[in-house]
């Protein structure tokens, strides 16, 4: 038994977030590995302390090992480093059904850079709908400061159908317009979508809903990450160094 090995494994398991028998099995397996490595180093003539240190060093950083031992795609995955993967994923990089992060990829993605079916963020790309500073939706609706998409609405909009301060498209309408046809002549369905979205009430209500949604979701994601940090710090302050 070595206190250093036990402490190391405590840290690994903190990150691994496994419970019950699974956690016991994983820990036992890692423990057996480390002791086998220590025995080998000792047989080579190393002191026990050095052997333990080298075995732990060779095993990898507890965060790297622990994160890699997490379940493949849990319901909620929150990480402070690396890529979070889960139904709800929160991390510097996040991939999931609902992904929140600096870079987020998912069915619903929210982040500085986000990509997905529906995405919200600074730079955002989506198949269905995106909203943000710069939005790109090649097969859907982009509603952004600078919007590029099948249907683009925004300050600067470029798309097959575009409406905005500066609009450019096959069917476009706006303050400054570069277009082949007037928006009036756009296909019926597209015309209806653009016109209904462009109605003042819907624009304001839609924008307000998105802003409120973002203001609720963003602090929640931050809070979840803060809680994860606290969990780690309260279990082992060394981990936060």
């Amino acid at each position, binding site marked *: 038994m070595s206190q250093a090995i036990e402490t190391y494994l405590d840290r690994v398991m903190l990150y691994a977030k496994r419970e019950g028998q699974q956690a016991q099995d994983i820990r*036992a397996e890692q423990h*057996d*590995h480390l002791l*086998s*490595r220590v025995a080998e180093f000792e047989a080579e003539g190393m002191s026990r302390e050095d052997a333990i240190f080298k075995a732990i060093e060779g095993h*990898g950083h507890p965060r*790297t*090992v622990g994160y*890699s*031992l997490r379940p493949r795609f849990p319901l909620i995955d929150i990480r402070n480093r690396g890529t979070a993967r889960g139904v709800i994923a929160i991390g510097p990089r996040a991939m999931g059904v609902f992904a929140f992060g600096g870079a987020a990829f998912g069915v619903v993605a929210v982040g500085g850079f986000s990509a997905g079916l529906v995405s919200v963020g600074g730079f955002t790309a989506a198949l269905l709908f995106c909203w943000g500073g710069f939005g790109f939706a090649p097969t859907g609706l982009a509603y952004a400061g600078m919007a590029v998409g099948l249907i683009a609405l925004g300050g600067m909009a470029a798309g097959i159908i575009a409406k905005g301060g500066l609009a450019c498209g096959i069917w476009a309408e706006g303050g400054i317009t570069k277009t082949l046809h007037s928006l009036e002549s756009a296909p019926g369905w597209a015309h209806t979508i653009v016109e209904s979205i462009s109605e003042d009430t819907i624009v304001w209500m839609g924008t307000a809903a998105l802003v409120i949604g973002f203001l609720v979701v963003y602090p929640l994601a931050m809070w979840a990450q803060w809680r994860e940090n606290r969990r780690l710090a309260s279990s082992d302050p060394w981990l936060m160094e």
Partner: protein
Amino acid sequence: MKLRKQTLDGNIETLLLAILADGPSYGYHIVTQLHERTDGLLKVGEGTVYPVLHRLEDRGLITATWRKSEQGRQRKYYRLTKRGGTALRENTAQWAGLMQVMQAVLGDPPPARA
């Protein structure tokens, strides 16, 4: 030369299956074999091999049983399944094909430095 993670991704599974094709083994022994067979060229955090083993187990390519080791500790032994054997053969064929293609274009590479 250190192999990049991207180069290793996907191939580490084949390496582990190949080691297990020689018979049942446990994590530490597998890692040691990996180091020995690659002549130290492959440098991976030893702890990061276990998630790959668990993944292979989840996919039914290997099975695991707990047994008591000579040191009296409980040890998890992995064994290749029939599906694992098939996957290994397929991966080996794929790898051989890729090597042929790479060699045809790049020619014989210079020997790798450790």
